[in-house]
């Protein structure tokens, strides 16, 4: 897993994480929502079908209790009569009741022997077994359907002196009973069944398949369930009707409600898929926005690796990416600048070194020196000739042989001493070069050819034609630098002149004094701002040029 993640790009990882999180969240949310709606729908089916059944039962019970009330009323009126009932008596009772209650069609009264004592209706023969049934259980009002007619039979004990059980038969107006469930719409195959205590159907409303209905009712016996009935979803409620021995079963077609469940399921799956597509698109887009700038920066880095610094990344989009690109551009241009600086510096170094070299092997210097040597040899000063030629040869060997730019101090001193010797011969010993450098400092690295031009300047400009001039070279150790000073007793320089010279050096202005300028430039090139050149002077007294080099550069450091 971790390995797979490591192989992916940031964009791909982001895409995968977003898609996974959104998918999980969405699926969980939808599952919960669906579960809630599913349960709510089932609850709705259950409560609504229960509610319907409960209301229906209530209506039947009201009807029944109405009938039982009438029956009790009749019984009550008949109970307290002391004489054997006369037919006109019961008719009077009946007539008085029928005015009040339109539900009555007719009444018959049977005596204890089951013989009709009084009647105002034509009594069909199928009634006879009911009379026996009523006598055998006088606690119940027996409701009976036959020939699309509705009867109720009840035996009762007349607690009079008569002390006998009589039986009351009442025929009811069935249309009122029918009206209870008349206008109910239970959907296809939705139906209502009334069953007697033998589970025989006695009354029905709506289209149904008897065997199937009876089978499920017998299995369920009581309560509510959802079932398949003739390919329809049905809510079945089985209960009983108070005051009768009847059971009632309601089959309510809930296909429509159930259908909304599957519709909801499809809708939810659709929404999930659509949302996932949107999320996939958006996150792909987003990860692309993350990825493509990365790729561009990467390509750019490659170009830089190949040495192409000229191209700039043009970036728009995410603010971080734009910033990154800007920084990157700045960085690459700085690198470019640095590289150019390095090249320039190298060129300058090379140029200045060549210049220094040129100064050393200046043909005039060579000519003048050779000229002096010729004079010496003409004057038979052979020892001086030897000394001069030796000095000259050492001087040039050192100039040419060593191509290092930084040399130990003793080499530089040796070089300048040779130079001094040569110049002394040339200038007829009118100056003295005094080198006062402690031996402990001999190994300190200093800039090559840094002293010779200064001594040259001292000789050229400092020498008094009539006086013997002293030129003194000394070295001082500071904390982290070394100072070399070239001191001469001569005309000296005015502060204004010093200022002009320093300006020429600092601002790189054209000048005749090539030697000093070259020293200054090379100092700055090799040591940077830590190296100083300082000129101290007192008019007609002295001039002192002080070079200061930092010590942090070693002989090995030089390029």
């Amino acid at each position, binding site marked *: 897993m971790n390995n797979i993640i490591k192989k992916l790009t940031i964009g791909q990882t982001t895409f995968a994480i977003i898609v996974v999180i959104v998918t999980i969240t969405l699926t969980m949310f939808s599952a919960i929502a669906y579960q809630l709606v599913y349960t709510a729908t089932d609850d709705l089916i259950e409560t609504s079908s229960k509610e319907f059944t409960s209301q229906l039962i209530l209506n039947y019970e009201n009807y029944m209790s109405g009938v039982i009330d009438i029956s009790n009323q009749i019984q009550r009126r008949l109970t307290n009569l002391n004489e054997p009932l006369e037919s006109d008596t019961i008719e009077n009772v009946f007539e008085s009741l029928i005015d009040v209650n339109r539900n009555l069609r007719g009444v018959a009264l049977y005596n204890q022997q089951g013989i009709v004592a009084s009647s105002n209706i034509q009594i069909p023969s199928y009634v006879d077994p009911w009379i026996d049934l009523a006598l055998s259980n006088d606690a119940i009002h027996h409701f009976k359907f036959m020939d699309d007619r509705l009867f109720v039979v009840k035996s009762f004990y007349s607690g009079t002196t008569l002390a006998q059980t009589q039986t009351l038969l009442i025929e009811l107006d069935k249309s009122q009973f029918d009206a209870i469930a008349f206008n109910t719409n239970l959907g296809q195959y939705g139906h209502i069944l009334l069953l007697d205590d033998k589970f025989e159907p006695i009354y029905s409303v709506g289209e149904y398949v008897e065997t199937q209905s009876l089978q499920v009712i017998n299995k369920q016996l009581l309560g509510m369930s959802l079932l398949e009935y003739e390919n329809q979803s049905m809510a079945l409620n089985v209960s009983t009707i108070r005051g009768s*021995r009847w059971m009632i079963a309601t089959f309510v077609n809930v296909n429509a409600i159930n259908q909304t469940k599957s519709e909801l399921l499809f809708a939810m799956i659709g929404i999930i898929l659509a949302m996932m597509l949107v999320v996939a698109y958006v996150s792909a887009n987003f990860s692309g926005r993350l990825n493509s700038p990365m790729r561009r920066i990467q390509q750019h880095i490659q170009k830089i690796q190949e040495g192409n610094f000229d191209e700039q990344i043009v970036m728009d989009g995410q603010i971080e990416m734009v910033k990154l690109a800007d920084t990157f551009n700045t960085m690459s241009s700085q690198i470019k600048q640095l590289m150019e600086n390095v090249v320039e510096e190298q060129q300058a170094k090379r140029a200045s070194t060549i210049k220094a070299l040129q100064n050393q092997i200046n043909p005039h210097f060579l000519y003048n020196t050779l000229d002096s040597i010729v004079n010496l040899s003409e004057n038979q000063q052979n020892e001086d000739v030897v000394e001069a030629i030796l000095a000259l040869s050492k001087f040039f060997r050192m100039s040419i042989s060593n191509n290092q730019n930084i040399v130990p101090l003793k080499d530089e001193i040796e070089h300048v001493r040779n130079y001094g010797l040569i110049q002394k011969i040339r200038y007829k010993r009118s100056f003295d070069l005094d080198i006062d450098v402690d031996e402990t400092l001999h190994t300190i690295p200093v800039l090559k050819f840094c002293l010779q031009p200064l001594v040259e300047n001292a000789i050229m400009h400092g020498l008094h034609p009539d006086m013997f001039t002293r030129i003194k070279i000394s070295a001082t150790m500071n904390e982290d630098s070394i100072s070399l000073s070239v001191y001469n007793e001569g005309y000296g320089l005015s502060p204004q002149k010093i200022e002009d010279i320093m300006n020429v050096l600092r601002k790189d202005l054209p000048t005749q004094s090539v030697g000093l300028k070259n020293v200054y430039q090379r100092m700055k090139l090799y040591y940077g701002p830590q190296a100083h050149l300082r000129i101290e002077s007192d008019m007609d007294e002295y001039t002192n040029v002080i070079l200061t080099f930092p010590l942090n550069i070693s002989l090995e450091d030089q390029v």
Partner: protein
Amino acid sequence: MKYSLIGLVLILMGCQPVVQQVPVLYYDMNDAYIADFKERLSSIEKEPLVHIDGGNRVNTQNEQFTQWIEQSSVLVVNPVDRLSVLPMILKANQLNKTIIFFNREPLDEDFSKASFAYYVGADPFQSAQLQTQLVDELQDSQRNQPLDRNGDGMIQLVILKGEQGHQDAEIRTRGVIETLTSKGYKLDILEVRVANFDRTQAYKATLDLMETYPNMELIISNNDAMALGAIDALVDMTWIQDINQNGVIEQDEPWFPVIGIDGLPEAIESMQKGYLFGTVKNDSEAMADAIVQLIDIVLNKTTWDTFTYTIKDRKIYIDYILINRP
């Protein structure tokens, strides 16, 4: 992950009561007698019972029944309609559950179909028989006025009947008449008046009856509430009169015999003050005890050896108790 799911299931299962609760389905807790009976049952505290009110609706009780029969191996049922218990019995057979019916007796033809069912109740006919014992005592009592006030050898009787068609009312009415007759009393039943077990209706009925039948000698009521209503009317019409106003009817003060059933506290108080002649008490304490003992047996906590009531054909009839004047 798997374990947390199992844990969740365990927690959810933990919400279910560990101890099996036995549901008691009452027909209507608004009925004072049922409310009192519920208190008696719960005071025994031997079984964790759940008391459920059927609200006097058959359909409601059927729903409660189908809900609880899934959860409990035994149900105690006080039917809203004793004619409607057949589906309950068949459902219990189907699921091998036991029903203990009480207070309202199922029809024999239904009850006989049950594989496991019991009935705990009282025999309403016995309550009528005990009422006739009170008539015997009244006959023998040394009152200033004999029971047969007009000396015609017959008792001019009025019966206050509960509800027409109500099982108890029918059986009590019929039981009183038949038992008195079989005991050799000559009855002149002036009227069987329906007052729906209600005190106010009985009060109005009695006022009317006193006017219609001034020769009335005895009122037998199907319950105490109607008996108290009758006494209210008799006091109003000074058939019963506390002349010395000491709150008690003495031997020589005007008095009229009324007999009730139920043993309501107010009826007993009325009886102790000499107004009501006597009443018959439904021993609901014993009935509750019998139900709890039956539950224990069904749940295999005890055996029949320790059962203290007479059981016949899985029916236990608790005797009524006769309460009359000291």
